[in-house]
Structure formats: structure tokens, C-alpha cells
């Protein structure tokens, strides 16, 4: 992959030159330990961050909002999102499968995707809830971005993957320099360190490699026990960037909106007349594990879980998907 080097000062200049041309979104620190995406302005530019790890709010919000109009269509402004992490790029790949795959392409998602340039970044640390490295992932991006930043001392190694990314760099080429071997060596060391950190944080979780097989057996008692603590708030489903379910609502003039929905809600699968295919909490709970680990794997070739750990963080009942998967693997 082609790469360049940019120092911190030039990176700030680069960002400054994009404000106005694009809607630029960057990570900002929130309550010391967390990050969230906000619009970049000339005022907040100096507090903008690449982030040590992923944001609190899921990336899907940019492409599939919690509430959005789907009829009639509206156009979206060109934008850049900065600081996207590897787990989130994997989320996007999974959402692409759902919204753009198959016979029909979702026009609302496609428009948002088309008009967005993604500048991702390597993780430089991890949260206690992060577990990408033990579920087919890595804490640094290898695909799915336009430009990737590999943080090193005083700057970044800049990887260029897409044509869109190349144009952006070319338009600002005086800010970038050639990479030297020392930059790459330093970055490789960082990557190895963070990966080892993720493995260390997760050393107590031992789940089977074939998670699609793990969730298949009925194990009714186990599901009941696991779901016991669940209060069905739907928080984990909304925080999950691979959850794509939505409800369609209507207003006057045949206008339609869609809202995030979750298979954990009791009324989700109910049909007119009252029949409900998943009438109990454990059936619904199991369905979401089956969807993530089995059905999506069968239909698209990968688990619909990238180890971002947002579901663990958001759960008021402190349910930890890693513990559940470990128990199911026993």
C-alpha cells in the first residue's frame, strides 16, 4: 500500500484546509476516557483527536441514522470522518452487505456512503471491553478506508487505499513527505504492542473458534439463564454497529421515515392478529446471538461482531458477550 508521512503541525494545517470544503467530523475527548464524533470547526480544531480507540457512539449513525426520512430522498453533503477504528471499518463492511448487497440497493445508505471519505486510524490502546483480536479482528485497519493514519511520534504514517483518498492527498501534497523505514518500524512496533494489550485484557475469555457452531445447539436452560439478567432495553442492539434492523413509519403525503429497531423488543416480529414467532425473552436473546454468529456468517461469510465491546459498556445489567460466548463454548 502506498504511504506518506505527515507531521502533527502539517496535519492541523491539512484539517484546517478541509473545513468548509467538506463537513468534517473528528473525534473529541469526552469525560476524559471516551471519544465522540463532532463537527470540526476552526474553533475546536486544536482539541480534535485521532483517539486511542473507538468512539462511544457507533459509526453506523453516520450512514443509517436513528431516525431518517426514506421517502422522498434527499441529497447529502460531502463529508470526511476522521478517527474511524478497525472494528468500525469491519462494521461498515457488514452494513454494506445488508444495505447494498442482494437484489436491492438501499438508496439512503448508498448516498451517505458515496459522499463520505473515511480517514481511519490505528488504535494506540484499548478499553477493557475491547476484544477484536479474539474474534477475527485486529486493532488496526487493513482495508475498508480511504486513508489510514498510523500514529508515530510527532506525526503519522499515512496509508492511501482508495482513489478518493489519493486525490485528497494529491491536492495537499506539499504537506506530506516520503516515509522512511524508521517510521514504518516504529508503527509496526506500536501495532504489535496494542494487539498484545487486547489479548492480555481478554486472557480470561476462552471461546471456541467456530462461534456459529457454538450458538446452534438449543441449550434452552442456558439461554434462559443468560437472558435472565437482560431487561430488554435494546441498548446493546442500538450501540451495535452491525445491527441494521429498522421500523418504517408513515406521515402525510406518503412520506416515510425509518427508525432503529431491535429484535429484542417483544413486538418486533409480531404479526397482525397477535401471533408472535419469538414470544419469550430467551428466544429473542438467542435470536440475536444466532443472527450475529450464525446467520450472518452463513449469508455473508463473517460474524456480525467485530469485538468493539460497545454492547458490554452500555448494558445496565452488566451482561458481557465474552462471558456468554465462553459459557456457550463450554
Amino acid at each position, binding site marked *: 500500500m502506498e504511504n506518506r508521512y505527515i507531521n502533527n503541525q502539517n496535519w492541523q494545517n491539512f484539517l484546517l484546509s478541509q473545513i468548509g470544503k467538506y463537513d468534517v467530523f473528528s473525534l473529541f475527548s469526552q469525560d476524559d476516557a471516551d471519544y465522540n464524533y463532532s463537527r470540526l470547526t476552526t474553533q475546536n480544531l486544536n482539541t480534535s483527536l485521532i483517539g486511542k480507540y473507538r468512539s462511544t457512539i457507533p459509526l453506523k449513525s453516520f450512514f443509517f441514522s436513528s431516525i431518517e426520512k*426514506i*421517502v*422522498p*430522498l434527499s441529497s447529502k453533503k460531502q463529508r470526511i470522518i476522521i478517527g474511524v477504528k478497525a472494528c468500525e471499518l469491519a462494521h461498515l463492511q457488514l452494513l454494506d452487505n*445488508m*444495505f447494498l448487497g*442482494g*437484489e*436491492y*440497493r*438501499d*438508496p439512503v445508505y*448508498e*448516498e451517505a456512503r458515496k459522499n463520505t471519505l473515511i480517514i481511519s486510524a490505528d488504535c494506540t490502546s484499548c478499553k477493557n471491553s475491547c476484544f477484536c483480536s479474539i474474534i477475527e479482528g485486529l486493532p488496526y485497519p487493513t482495508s475498508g478506508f480511504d486513508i489510514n493514519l498510523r500514529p508515530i511520534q510527532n506525526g503519522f504514517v499515512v496509508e492511501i487505499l482508495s482513489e478518493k483518498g489519493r486525490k485528497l492527498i494529491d491536492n495537499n501534497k506539499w504537506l506530506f513527505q516520503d516515509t522512511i523505514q524508521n517510521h514504518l518500524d516504529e508503527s509496526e512496533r506500536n501495532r504489535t504492542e496494542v494487539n498484545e494489550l487486547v489479548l492480555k485484557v481478554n486472557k480470561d475469555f476462552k471461546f471456541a473458534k467456530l462461534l456459529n457452531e457454538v450458538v446452534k445447539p*438449543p441449550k434452552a436452560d442456558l439461554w434462559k439463564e443468560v437472558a435472565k439478567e437482560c431487561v430488554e432495553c435494546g441498548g446493546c442492539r442500538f450501540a451495535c454497529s452491525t445491527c*441494521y*434492523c*429498522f*421500523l*418504517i*413509519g*408513515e*406521515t*402525510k*403525503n*406518503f412520506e*416515510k421515515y*425509518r427508525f432503529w*429497531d431491535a*429484535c429484542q423488543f417483544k413486538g*418486533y*416480529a*409480531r*404479526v*397482525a*392478529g397477535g*401471533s*408472535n*414467532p*419469538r*414470544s419469550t425473552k430467551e*428466544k429473542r436473546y438467542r*435470536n440475536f446471538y*444466532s*443472527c450475529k454468529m*450464525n*446467520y450472518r456468517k*452463513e*449469508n455473508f461469510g463473517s460474524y456480525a461482531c467485530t469485538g468493539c465491546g460497545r454492547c458490554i459498556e452500555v448494558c445496565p445489567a452488566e451482561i458481557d458477550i465474552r462471558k456468554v460466548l465462553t459459557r456457550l463454548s463450554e
Partner: protein
Amino acid sequence: MKNIYQPIKAEVVNITDESSNIKTFTLKPSEKFSFVTGQFIEFSLNGIGESPFTPSSSPYKTETIDVTIMRAGYVTEKIHQLKKGDIVGIRGPYGKGYPIEEMVDKEVLILGGGVGMAPLRSFLLTLVKQIDKFKKVTLCYGSKSPEDIIYKSEFEDWKKIKKLDILRSVDKCPEGVWKESVGVVTCLLDKVKVDLKNSVAIVCGPPIMMKFGTKKLLEVGFSPKNIYLSMEKNMSCGLGKCGHCQLGPYFVCKDGPVFLYDKIKDLEELWD
């Protein structure tokens, strides 16, 4: 960009009362609209909502589409208040219909219950149009009572069609008013003679009837590879996107609604 969620407008040109809670609405789409029998549409009421229905008219009739709807929930309640001349929205058609070509030169056994007769009427009319292509067509139809039978007047015409046998049952009725069978629809299967080696069965009805109907067909000797089910789930977008009609690894809206029983027979939640 084409908007897959955009309905086209259609005018309600006729309304037929079928039973106390079932009506057939004849719609005239504002644009050309065609479907394969067994596929479904999303019926959209301005400001109210959308619901999925399988057209009950023949796909050969292209000017208008019939949709037979039971009053069963919020949207259907409002649909039942429609009047002639009202404008509604329709999207589709969606999903996979009945594989008619695979039934050629075979005996076709249709097992239907209640408002499940709606898609089966479309299917039956499709077969009747080319009846010479099939060995024999048998319709077994069950309803709760004689009053609950839909398409009452049409049955008289269908009875005259050669190569089409019709057997009907009602769950219960006062003595003397019903000359045909009494009992749940599966009892009709004991009276039907089929060449099992050369037959396919089509089932559509309420979930409980589908379950026991399929069980009975298997008992009679049908292979799971010769039974087709019209599944009903909460098909909301119709496009395989929104997730609501998930049935194991499938979406009923795009992988169905017509499924070969063999394909889904091992799914734990099949009859839930």
C-alpha cells in the same frame, strides 16, 4: 437514484365483502404493475402505515389487482374503512412466488384455510388458465363456518371446471345447513386420492393450520421436497433489509414467502 421504498399510487375501484371481517379491495395502479402468483405487495395507507399482502387476483389480469384483507390489526382496521375512489400506495411485487413450471404434468393438491385462500385464489386462477398443463388440481379448503367462506360465488364457477376437484370443510356448524364436510381442513386429506409419486402440495393458512396441514401431508406420504408453504411473517420493508421477517438464516420477504418445506423443515422456530 431509484428509491426502493417509494410506493406508486393506486385507486380503490371496487370493494367486496367476503365475510364479517374479510373484504376484497380491487385496486387500479397508476402505473404498469405486474406480479408472479404468490409474490406479495406492500399496501400503504397515507399517514397510517404499510402491511404486506399477497394479491388474490390472477396475474393475467393486469389492469387491476385484488387484495383480500382480514381485519386483524391497526393497519387492516383502517384499510377496512376505505371507500371506492380512495387512493392508496403499493410497492412491489416482492419475494418468490409459486414455481408453476415445476408443477407441469403433475397433480397439484392445494390445502388452504381461512383468509389463506387469498393467495391460493390467485394461484388457482393461474392454474385454471392453463389447466391442460396439469394432471389434476384438487383444492381442499377449510373455514370456521359456512359464513366464513370467502369467494362464495366464485366457488360455484370453479366447481364447473374440468380437472379441478374441490373439497370443503367447516370446523363447526348447526346441523342441516352444510352439506359438505365438517371438521378441521386436514380431515379432507383422508378423502383425496393422490398419486404420491407425481404430486405437489401447496399449503397456505393460519400458522396452526399450516403446521398440522404439513404434518398430515407427510403422514399421507408426501415428500418434504414436494410441499410448498406460503409463510407469513412481519414483512415490513419487503426488500430483505429491515430484518423483521427473519426466519432462521432466511428473510421471508426475499427468500420466500413461498418456501419448499424441505428447505426450512429443520428450523426450530418454523411454527412459532
